């Protein structure tokens, strides 16, 4: 994603299940501050919850960088999830609905992608995974 002015940023560790709740609460607070509609808030918080759980369960823990960004005249929220887990050998397959290597429903990645305006994923076996999402007001 292109470099945009970052108004504020914060890094939240994702090392335990309770950190998923912390991530959700932070994203809720910032989307409220950005005056997202209730539906847009809900979509962004839900996407964050899915991606945080992925980082914890598949990536064996990681972090998320939360950024309030500006692309004049609009403002948005960008989230960058990073883990040092096993990585994803086949990203296209991982983005398919219903595909899972864990015990979930396989909706985390593909579902999160549908809930945001921008979605980027970088991953390689042994190199961990980075997922960047953004939603604009």
């Amino acid at each position, binding site marked *: 994603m292109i470099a945009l002015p970052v108004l504020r940023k914060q890094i939240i560790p994702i090392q335990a299940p309770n950190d*998923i*709740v912390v991530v959700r609460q932070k994203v809720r607070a910032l989307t409220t501050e950005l005056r997202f509609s209730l539906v847009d808030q809900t979509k962004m*918080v*839900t996407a964050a919850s899915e991606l945080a759980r992925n980082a914890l369960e598949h990536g064996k823990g990681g972090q998320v960088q939360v950024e309030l960004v500006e692309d004049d005249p609009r403002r948005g929220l960008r989230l960058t999830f990073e883990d040092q887990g096993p990585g994803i050998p086949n990203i296209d397959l991982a983005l398919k609905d219903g595909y899972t290597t864990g015990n*979930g429903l396989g*909706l985390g990645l593909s579902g999160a992608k549908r809930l945001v305006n921008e979605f980027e994923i970088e991953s390689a076996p042994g190199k961990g995974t980075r997922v960047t999402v953004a939603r604009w007001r």
Partner: protein
Amino acid sequence: MDRIPILRMGEFLLVTIQVDMHDQLALSLQEDLTQRVQKTGARGVLIDISALDIVDSFIGRMLATIAGTARLLDAQTAVVGMQPAVAITLVELGLQLRGVRTALDVEKGMTLLRAALERRA
């Protein structure tokens, strides 16, 4: 560890989820409810999620699992009070909770479960 309280209302059990659920809490609710259904012989389970401002795939799966398990123990489940923004998000996420009965509030949920039980009788 904290637990979500389960209330008995006649032949039904009522659970009101009021906290931002972390994963472990969701798992213990699943276990507690299943045990209570078996112990009390409840015929129906009402899960009130009106205070939940998101339902992600993990919580969605928990709701579906509770409904499926309760059915094996001869109880019907209704998820009630879902917020409209949550419903919109769930469908977009790809989770439609097929097989889980829903109603707009606890009262309508009870009517729904009673009707389901009468049909079976």
